[in-house]
C-alpha cells in the first residue's frame, strides 16, 4: 500500500490550522467599512403584522438603515424556494407558500425575521431594535403536526388547505393489503421521531460586500454548498446574475445538513450591502440559531409489519405525518418522501411495502435535512417493527433478522431502490462477536446485582448515499442534478491543485482527496492542495451532504485524473521519443515499456507547459483537466450496531455502557477519518435517543431554546466505542466506496431504544428517553422488571 494512498490512516492536513487557532471561519473575517446586521424577530408563533414603526430606530445612534419585508418586494427580491417538487397521490403539486426573507404581513413562527437593523456596531443595532414598534395581531398557533390537519386548526398559509403541503404515497396499497390479509401475525407500533436542533458548533454567519464599480456582490457564508446557494440566490431570489455573485464558504464549523439550505439572513445581508453600499455582517448567536436554523426529523408514524408463521416478513405499512414547519425549506419536501419511504425495506426481503406521507405546515421553525435525513426515520420504523415483532413472536431478534436478510444482489425493493451489493449476515455476525452477545446474560445478571436493568438492542440499518444519478432524481422531482465536478490543475513544477465542488466542514477532504491524488500521481501529499468552497475558483459543484463526497466527489476527481494521465502520456511520448501506446505510468514515473527510458511526473508537467517538444498542431500545451461525474446508482452502506444500556430503575436514568458498530462502507480511503465519522454519528444518534428534543408549548414558544434546556451530548454520555468494518465493494463508482458520514446517526437511535425496551420489559419508550420519561414508563408497568 502507498504510504499516503488509499487505505492509509494519514493524519489530516487541515489540522495544523485548526489546532493553532489559525482557521478562517466566516465570523473571523472582517471587511473594511463593515456594518453589522441585527434581525428583529417575531416573538409570536402566528401573528398578523399590522404596522411597523421604525422611525425612531432609524435615527438611533450608529444606525445605517432599518429594512423590512415590504421593501424586498419593491426591490424585486424574490422569495426563498423549496427545490424538490413532490406531487400528491391525486397528482396535484405540493403547496409551496411564499417565503420572503423578511416577513410580509404575517409572522409564521417565533423567530421569523420581521426587520433588520444595519448599524456601525452590533450593540448599536441591538439597542436600536428595541425602538422599533410593531403592531401585531396575535393569531392562534398550531404546533403539533398530528393536529395541523384537524378541522378548525388555524390556517397558516392561504395556499395550503388544512395546512397540508402534500399527501404522497409510495408502493402498491392493494398488494400490501393482500400481504397483511394473509399474515400469521401483525405487529403494530406508533412512533414519534423527535424534532432535533442540529447545533453545529459554529453558528451560521453571513458577510456580504458590494463593489459598485463592478456591480459585483460577494457573500462569505457558512454553507455546505456555496454553488447551490449562488444558483438559488441568483436564479430564484433574483439578487444578481450568477456571474455577478461570488459565494465563498471558508472554514465551516460543522453542518450536519443545517448549512445546506439557503436562509433569509444571507439574502438580506446581500440586499442590504448593496443598499447601504457597505459590507454587512451577521453572525447568529446560539439562541438565535435555535429559532432560525432548520430543525430535523419531527415525524408521527403508525406502522405495521406482517409476519408469516415461519417468521418471514410479508409486508410493511406506514402512515407518517411529517412536520415541515412554517415554510418549506430548500430540500424539505424530499426528506420525508424519497429519502424516507424508499428505505423502508431496510436490510430485508420484504415483498410488499406501502407508505403514505402527509407533510404539514405548523407555526414552528422550518424542518429540513439533518444528518441522515429521512433514513434515520426509516431505520427507526423498520428496526422497531422487527424488534417488537421478534419479541411478540417469541423469536430471537438476531435470528428473525437473519431469516429475513436480503441475500442475493442486485436486489430490487418494492420502494424504488435497487441495492447493488451487501452482506448483512456478515455485519451482524461480526457485530455479535465483537459485542460478545453470548456473554450478555452474565452481564445482565451482574447489573441486576447492583440494582440496574441491563438491555441489549440491535440496529441493522441501511442507507442510500450519493443521491444520484441525476436523471433518476430528476424524475422524482429534484430541481438540480446530483453529480459532482472536479478539476485537476498540474502546475509546471509538478505540484497539483484539485478544485472540487464538494465542500468540507469537518470531513477531512483536504486529506482524503489528496490521498487519492497522491496515490494516482505518485507525488507527496505536501505537493497537493484541495481547493473548494469558492464559486470564483471552482466552476460549479453540488456540495456536501448525504454522505456523497467520497462516492461522487472523489469519483469526479478520478475521472479528471484519468484525463490528466492520458494527456501527460502524450507529453511523455514526445519527450521520450516513443509511441504514446508504449508509455507506462507507474509510481510517479512515465516509462517507455521494456526500456529504462523514463521521465518523472514533474518533468512531464514542465514539458507540458514549456511545450518545446511538440508543436501546437500536435498537442495543446498545459496540463489541466476537468470532469463531471454522475454515478449510476445510489450507494448502499449498511451495518449492524449493538447497544447495551443500564437503566437505573430508581431514577429512570439510562447509561449507555457498551457500543459496537460494524459497518460496510465499501473501500475505505482513510480508516481513521471513517471511524471518526462513525463516532460522531453515533453520538448524534444517541443524543436523539436519550437527550435531545425540541419542545414547543401550545402557543409555539420554543421551550428548548438554548443549551440550558436542549441537552447536547457530552463526553460522559458515552462509553468507548468499538468500531469495526466489513467490506463489499460498491460497483456503482470507480473507487468502490459507499459513504460513511451519516451511518452512526441512522443506526444509533433505534439501537438505544431497542436496548432500553429490552432492559425494562416495555415497548412504551419515547425519544428522548429522558430519566423522567423512562421512570414514568416504569411507574405505568409497575416496576415489572425493576430490581
Amino acid at each position, binding site marked *: 500500500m502507498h504510504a499516503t494512498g488509499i487505505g492509509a490512516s494519514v493524519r489530516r492536513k487541515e489540522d495544523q490550522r485548526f489546532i493553532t487557532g489559525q482557521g478562517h471561519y466566516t465570523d473571523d473575517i472582517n471587511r473594511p467599512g463593515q456594518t453589522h446586521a441585527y434581525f428583529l424577530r417575531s416573538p409570536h408563533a402566528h401573528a398578523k403584522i399590522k404596522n411597523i414603526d421604525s422611525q425612531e430606530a432609524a435615527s438611533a445612534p450608529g444606525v445605517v438603515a432599518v429594512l423590512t419585508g415590504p421593501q424586498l418586494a419593491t426591490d424585486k427580491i424574490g422569495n426563498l424556494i423549496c427545490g424538490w417538487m413532490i406531487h400528491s397521490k391525486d397528482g396535484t403539486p405540493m403547496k409551496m407558500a411564499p417565503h420572503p426573507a423578511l416577513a410580509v404581513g404575517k409572522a409564521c413562527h417565533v423567530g421569523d425575521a420581521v426587520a433588520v437593523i444595519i448599524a456601525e456596531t452590533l*450593540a448599536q443595532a*441591538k*439597542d436600536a431594535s428595541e425602538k422599533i414598534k410593531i403592531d401585531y395581531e396575535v393569531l392562534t398557533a398550531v404546533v403539533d403536526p398530528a393536529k395541523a390537519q384537524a378541522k378548525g386548526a388555524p390556517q397558516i398559509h392561504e395556499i395550503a388547505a388544512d395546512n397540508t403541503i402534500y399527501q404522497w404515497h409510495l408502493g402498491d396499497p392493494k398488494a400490501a393489503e393482500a400481504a397483511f390479509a394473509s399474515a400469521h401475525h401483525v405487529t403494530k407500533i406508533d412512533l414519534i421521531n423527535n424534532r432535533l436542533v442540529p447545533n453545529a458548533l459554529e453558528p451560521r454567519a453571513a458577510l456580504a460586500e458590494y463593489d459598485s464599480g463592478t456591480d459585483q456582490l460577494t457573500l462569505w457564508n457558512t454553507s455546505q454548498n456555496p454553488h447551490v446557494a449562488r444558483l438559488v440566490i441568483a436564479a430564484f431570489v433574483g439578487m444578481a446574475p450568477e456571474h455577478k455573485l461570488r459565494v465563498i464558504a471558508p472554514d465551516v464549523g460543522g453542518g450536519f445538513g443545517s448549512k445546506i439550505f439557503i436562509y433569509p439572513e444571507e439574502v438580506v445581508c446581500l440586499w442590504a450591502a448593496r443598499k447601504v453600499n457597505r459590507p454587512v455582517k451577521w453572525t447568529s448567536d446560539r*439562541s438565535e440559531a435555535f429559532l432560525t436554523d432548520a430543525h430535523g426529523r419531527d415525524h408521527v408514524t403508525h406502522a405495521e409489519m406482517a409476519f408469516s408463521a415461519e417468521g418471514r416478513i410479508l409486508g410493511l405499512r406506514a402512515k407518517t405525518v411529517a412536520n415541515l414547519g412554517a415554510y418549506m425549506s430548500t430540500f424539505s419536501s424530499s426528506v420525508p418522501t424519497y429519502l424516507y419511504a424508499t428505505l423502508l425495506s431496510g436490510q430485508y426481503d420484504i415483498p410488499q411495502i406501502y407508505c403514505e406521507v402527509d407533510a404539514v405546515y405548523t407555526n414552528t421553525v422550518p424542518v429540513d435535512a439533518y444528518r441522515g435525513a429521512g433514513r434515520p426515520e426509516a431505520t427507526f420504523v423498520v428496526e422497531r417493527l422487527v424488534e417488537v415483532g421478534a419479541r411478540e413472536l417469541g423469536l430471537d431478534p438476531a435470528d428473525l433478522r437473519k431469516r429475513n436478510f436480503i441475500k442475493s444482489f442486485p436486489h430490487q425493493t418494492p420502494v424504488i431502490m435497487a441495492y447493488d451489493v451487501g452482506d448483512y449476515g456478515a455485519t451482524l455476525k461480526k457485530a455479535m462477536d465483537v459485542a460478545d452477545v453470548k456473554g450478555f446474560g452474565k452481564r445482565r445478571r451482574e447489573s441486576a446485582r447492583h440494582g440496574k436493568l441491563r438491555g441489549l438492542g440491535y440496529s441493522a440499518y441501511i442507507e442510500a448515499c450519493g443521491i444520484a444519478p441525476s436523471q433518476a432524481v430528476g424524475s422524482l422531482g429534484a430541481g438540480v442534478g446530483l453529480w459532482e465536478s472536479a478539476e485537476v490543475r498540474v502546475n509546471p513544477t509538478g505540484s497539483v491543485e484539485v478544485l472540487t465542488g464538494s465542500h468540507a466542514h469537518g470531513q477531512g477532504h483536504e486529506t482524503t482527496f489528496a490521498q487519492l491524488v497522491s496515490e494516482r500521481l505518485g507525488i507527496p501529499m505536501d505537493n497537493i492542495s484541495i481547493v473548494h468552497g469558492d464559486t470564483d475558483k471552482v466552476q460549479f459543484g453540488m456540495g456536501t451532504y448525504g454522505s456523497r463526497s467520497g462516492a461522487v466527489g472523489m469519483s469526479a476527481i478520478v475521472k479528471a485524473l484519468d484525463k490528466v494521465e492520458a494527456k501527460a502520456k502524450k507529453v511523455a511520448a514526445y519527450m521520450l521519443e516513443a509511441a504514446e501506446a508504449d508509455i507506462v505510468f507507474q509510481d510517479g514515473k512515465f516509462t517507455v515499456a521494456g526500456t529504462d527510458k523514463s521521465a518523472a511526473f514533474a518533468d512531464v508537467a514542465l514539458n507540458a507547459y514549456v511545450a518545446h517538444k511538440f508543436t501546437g498542431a500536435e498537442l495543446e500545451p498545459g496540463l489541466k483537466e476537468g470532469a463531471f461525474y454522475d454515478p449510476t446508482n445510489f450507494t448502499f452502506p449498511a451495518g449492524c450496531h449493538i447497544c447495551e444500556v443500564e437503566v437505573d430503575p*430508581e*431514577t*429512570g436514568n439510562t447509561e449507555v455502557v457498551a457500543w459496537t458498530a460494524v459497518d460496510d462502507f465499501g473501500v475505505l480511503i482513510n480508516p481513521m477519518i471513517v471511524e471518526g465519522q462513525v463516532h460522531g454519528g453515533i453520538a448524534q444518534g444517541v443524543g436523539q435517543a436519550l*437527550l435531545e428534543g425540541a*419542545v414547543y408549548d401550545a402557543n409555539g414558544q420554543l*421551550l*428548548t431554546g438554548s*443549551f*440550558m*434546556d*436542549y*441537552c*447536547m451530548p457530552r463526553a460522559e454520555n458515552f462509553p468507548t466505542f468499538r468500531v469495526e468494518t466489513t467490506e463489499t465493494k460498491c460497483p456503482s463508482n470507480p473507487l468502490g466506496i459507499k459513504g460513511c458520514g451519516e451511518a452512526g446517526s441512522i443506526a444509533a437511535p433505534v439501537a438505544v431504544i431497542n436496548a432500553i425496551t429490552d432492559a425494562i420489559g416495555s415497548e412504551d419508550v419515547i425519544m428522548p428517553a*429522558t*430519566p*423522567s420519561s423512562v*421512570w*414514568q414508563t416504569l411507574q405505568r408497568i409497575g416496576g415489572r422488571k425493576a430490581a
Partner: protein
Amino acid sequence: MYAFTFHRPTSVRQAANLLGKHEDAKLLAGGHTLLPTMKMRLAAPAHLVDLSQIEGLSGIELKGRSISIGALTKHVEVANSDVVKRNLPALAELASLIGDPAVRHRGTLGGSVANNDPTADYPAALLALGATVVTNKRKIAADDYFKGMFETALEPDEIIVKVTFPIAKKAGYVKFRNPASRYAMVGVFVAKRSSEIRVAVTGAGGNGVFRVPAFEEALKKRFSPKSLEGLTIPAEGLNSDIHGSAEYRAHLVGVIAKRAVAAAVETPEVAVSDAPENGA
C-alpha cells in the same frame, strides 16, 4: 448587553457606598450568573461593582467547630481545600459538582448564595448545616436567609463577606443533574450534627431550597439510608417542567436523599483539626 459603568472598589465600604449611591447597581463576583443574564438583556444594571480587587474576601479558615469561607472564594478552591475535604468533605464534593471546571474557576460562594437560584447547590449546604451568612452589616442564620426563588434577606446595600459552616459529624451531598443545564434537578444535602439532623433539598422546590422534616424525623431514629426506604414527599409546590414533573421530582427527592445519607454514612467521622489554611 446594555451599557453600564464598571467600578472596581478596593474595600467593602467603597463597594457598599456604590450600592447605596446607585439604585440600579449590581455586584459582580464570579459573574457566571449575572453576565449570561445581562448578555440576554434580561438584566440591565447601570452600574456594575466588581468585587475582585477587595482584599480579604476570599479564603478558607478552620475556627473551632466551623469552617469560614470568604464570599469571593471560588468553587474550585472549596472543592480542593484540604481543610474542607478533611472536615466537611460533603461541602467539597458539592463545590466540585457545580457547573464545569472552567465555571468553578470563576464562580464564587458569595455569588451563588446572594443569587439564590432555586437550582443552585450551595443553598442546600447552608440550610442543612445551619450555616451563618456574614455580611458587612450583620450575621444572618441560613434559616432566616433564604426567602424564596432568587430572594434573600439581603438588603440593597448589603454585601456578603463570608459564610460560616458548622462542621457536621456526618454529611453527604448527592445531586441529580438536569441533563441539559447541569444545575440540580434535585440536590439533597444531609447533615448530622450533635444537635440535630437536617435534610435540605435544592432544585426541586418552586420556591427554592427547603427542608424535609419527615425525613429528618425518620433519620433521627436511625441515621441510615434504610430509614428513608419508600419515603417520598408531596409533589405539591415542586417544580414541573419539560425535564420532569413535580411527581418525578418528589420521587427523586426520596431516592437522592437516601443516596445522600448513604454517602454521609460512608464518610469517616470527622476528627477536628486546627491547622489553619489560607484559601488560595
